[in-house]
């Protein structure tokens, strides 16, 4: 059943081409049904279930090696599929009034969503890389055609970075598959590659994945790409695409090359912590609201990488939870900044926004942004808190020394988030007489999209065990866990 998420979104993409007039309804239908399917699959999943094969069809004979179109699902992939669906639905809702070349817009949007479903569900490395690279081109066209600020540059930079990362991953996949004589993820995980082989393939592959995961210092595509992208584009980028890299690292690079991982994980942790702190510091100095959120995405993705690097159960579980959580929060933040504010005020400059009395003009946007900021800062009750605390506990078990630096980074996150919040919506408190500008009200689809995302972050924040119960057993079985240092 879960394979239908992929079929539905791609069928929707084809249908959009034939019936561009109903593009948004088709896109909404496809993503909504896919969300329901992945939600039901996640709920029905037994906590102790192993990777369940969904589809297995022989596909290609490659150098005497079988490539099968093999899809499978477990707690982690279903959780990620659910976020993909939710973000996809919200992205469609926030693009409801796209007028320009609507059919094409939703075609590319659905291809990003469908490709991401494919990545999260594939259990064969060739299938994985096909879907992984399939997502690259739709992003380019989404940004270059419907974007704003410096869109040609932002789109090209993002595309070339993605392709660069993809090429490194491809190299690793070729090396692993040729050496082991198989593309099957489970077979490869149990193959036991030479230690010397692992020590060079792991960093190549991990680096490739972490380009999409926006690891510092290869993160620069993310802020420019986010800023240039249309709202739905930034939502998909922050919500799904950045997670593809982290997911690949967890699903492919780490289980295949455990020795390589152990050798390099300290270096990864250093990069992750540096990313958390530096990106937060840079966000503090931004004038453009989308740049603030763009850098905050890099900072939040640092937590994912840090959690992965710890190699402890809680660290890895927290990393997955953070992927889910930031997928929702990132999408929400960009929805507010891009759709609710920029599309109406035509500026994202914090100083200009401050003089507009937006709190009174767009009360619903103000409310949404407060919630999103709170979630982003890691206020208890929201998903950000549950995820980041879990990562921190995992980090404490691995490297206690890293925790204070990371916490300092979290403080910086809170500072820049509050600064952006105050400057954008509450900048006029000293001068209560500023005229309230007449802006178009928030539309119904926008409200629905925002409410879906807010509810999602609240549910995950209050009941993280709903997800963790499905995620942690998978992680315990992955044989990745490194015993805590004494």
């Amino acid at each position, binding site marked *: 059943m879960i394979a239908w998420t992929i079929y539905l979104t791609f069928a929707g993409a084809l249908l959009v081409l034939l019936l561009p007039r109903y593009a948004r309804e088709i896109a909404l239908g496809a993503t909504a049904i896919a969300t329901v399917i992945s939600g039901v699959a996640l709920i029905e999943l037994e906590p102790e279930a192993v990777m369940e094969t969904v589809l297995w069809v022989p*596909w*290609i*004979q*490659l*150098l*005497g090696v079988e490539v099968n179109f093999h899809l499978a699902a477990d707690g982690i992939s279903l959780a990620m599929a659910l976020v993909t669906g939710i973000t996809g639905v919200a992205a469609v809702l926030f693009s409801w009034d796209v007028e320009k070349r609507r059919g094409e817009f939703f075609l590319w949007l659905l291809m990003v969503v469908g490709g991401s479903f494919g990545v999260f569900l594939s259990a064969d490395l*060739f299938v994985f*890389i*096909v*879907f992984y*690279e*399939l997502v*690259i*081109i739709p992003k*380019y*066209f989404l940004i*270059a*055609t419907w974007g704003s600020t410096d869109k*040609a540059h932002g789109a*090209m930079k993002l*595309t*070339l970075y993605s*392709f*660069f990362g993809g*090429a490194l991953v*491809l*190299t690793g996949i*070729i*090396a692993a*598959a*040729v050496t082991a004589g198989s593309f099957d993820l489970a077979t490869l995980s149990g193959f036991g590659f030479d230690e010397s082989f692992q020590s060079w393939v792991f960093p190549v592959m991990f680096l490739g994945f972490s380009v999409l995961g926006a690891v510092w210092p290869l993160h620069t595509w993310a802020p420019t790409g986010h800023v240039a992208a249309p709202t739905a584009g930034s939502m998909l980028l922050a919500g799904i695409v950045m997670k593809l890299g982290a997911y690949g690292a967890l699903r492919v690079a780490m289980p295949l090359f455990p020795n390589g991982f152990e050798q390099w994980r300290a270096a990864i942790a250093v990069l992750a912590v540096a990313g958390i702190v530096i990106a937060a510091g840079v966000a503090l100095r931004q004038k453009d609201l989308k740049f603030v959120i763009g850098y905050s995405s890099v900072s939040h993705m640092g937590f994912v990488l840090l959690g992965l690097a710890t190699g402890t159960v809680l660290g890895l579980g927290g990393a997955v939870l953070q992927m889910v959580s930031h997928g929702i929060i990132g999408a929400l933040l960009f929805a507010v900044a891009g759709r609710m504010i920029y599309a109406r005020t035509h500026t994202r400059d914090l100083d200009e926004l401050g003089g507009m009395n937006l709190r009174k003009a767009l009360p619903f946007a103000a409310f949404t942004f407060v919630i999103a900021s709170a979630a982003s800062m890691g206020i208890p009750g929201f998903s950000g808190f549950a995820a980041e605390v879990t990562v921190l506990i995992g980090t404490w078990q691995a490297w206690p020394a890293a925790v204070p630096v990371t916490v300092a980074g979290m403080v910086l996150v809170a500072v820049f988030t509050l600064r952006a919040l105050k400057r954008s919506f509450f900048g006029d408190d000293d001068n209560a007489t500023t005229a309230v500008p007449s802006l178009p009200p928030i539309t119904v689809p926008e409200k629905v999209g925002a409410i879906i995302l807010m509810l999602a972050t609240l549910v995950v924040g209050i009941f993280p065990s709903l997800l963790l119960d499905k995620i942690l057993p998978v992680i315990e079985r992955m044989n990745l866990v490194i015993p805590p240092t004494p």
Partner: protein
Amino acid sequence: MNPYLELLKLASPEAVMTITALVVLALQALRPKTPVAKHGAAAAGILLAGLAVVMLPEEGMVPNAGEPGAGMLVIDPLSSLIKLIVLGLALFTVLLARGATFTRYFGEYLALILLATIGLMVMVSSEQLLVIFVGLELTGLSLYILAGFDKTDIRSAEASLKYFLFGGVASAFTLFGLSLVYGMTGSTSLPGIAEALGGGPMEPLLAAGIVMTLIGFSFKVAAAPFHLWAPDAYQAAPVSSAAFIASASKVGSFFVLTKILLFGFDPATGSAGFQNFVAGWAPLLAVMAGLSIIVGNLVALAQKNLRRLLAYSAVAHAGYTLIGILGGGEGGHAAVIFYATAYAISILGAFGLVALVRRASGRADIADFACLRKSSPVLAACMGVFLLSLAGLPPLVGFFGKFYLFAAAYSADPGLLWLVLLALAGSLVSLYYYLSVLKVILVDECDADRVPDAIGGSRLSTILIVVLAALTLALGLFPNALLGAIMERM
């Protein structure tokens, strides 16, 4: 059976093609004003030749093994498949040339395309170096004329002359190389050469012979540093001639080069592994592959004319394909055939579109493609498919072709990883220029008063281009359709 009858039977596809060429020429003389008849006759002849290829016995050889000059004409399943591919590409070229306006003498033009195809078929199905050379020359001479067929354009003549001068020198190299190889091994047949080469140390004279042979073929496949004719030929020759040079001629040449290197010169391979160069043709080929990838991709970045850009990217693609030959073995051999075919399909489609745009606007600068999306969204989408396939993105055939090439090279010798990484870096560069073209076509809004005429093809050319795009996509989704056919004929 009478040996001549046997020969006629095995050479029936070539015979059909020759008769067709004569018929088309005669039609030009008798009915000069009806181009439809000539295109129809040429297409029918190609289809008939394809049928003849299918009807051939699976194996056959004239003269038989053991007799003097054995293997002048060899029929085996693999060469028959290549002939079918070449004939298919020729068919598309002939049909795409329909409606072109650069000449009134279509009979002669089509006859030359048919002759070039015959040359390709001859060299594909021979194991005798001399016969291969004759085929090579037949193709080459036809192509020189095809490149200069546009008598209204002085640059077409320039392209033809450059192509001819470079080609002539390259042929001289090849022939000289072959004579040295013959002198040292005492044989002109590939199995005979392989046998004579086996064992003994490499004589310097023999090395010179192999290097010279290699140079001649590098010219044919436009690998750097022997690529200098390609930009002019691609840019200024009539579009359908350029399309043939880039597609069918490439497939045939790559197949023959692979056959000569992997079977004839096999004992002199050497190694091109990282920090493990061993004398032989492999290190030489590796350097040419690397150079082609670097030069082709970097120079393509600076091009404003789409045909010139495609020419430099063709140099880079030749570099990628050579990596497959370096991989060697069944995997590498199959990878080369698959990739060359995949490339030919995509480039043929791209050139088909170039022809349409050129007919409408008189040029083929990238800027002239700006209104393609407005006048024909379907054709614009097809261009997207072709260029993204050339860039190597899934789910198009170019992605699988590259993946297979690199996997074959790495599985043959992990030391070839340096070339694979270089090729991936080259692909990254190529993505930039392909996307820059696609930005003009698919992203930018059309400035209505820029383009004089709406770009729209005749129904035939639109259908052909859509079919090629569909092939690009279908072979990407189901590569086994072609790869399985290649592998089971190995």
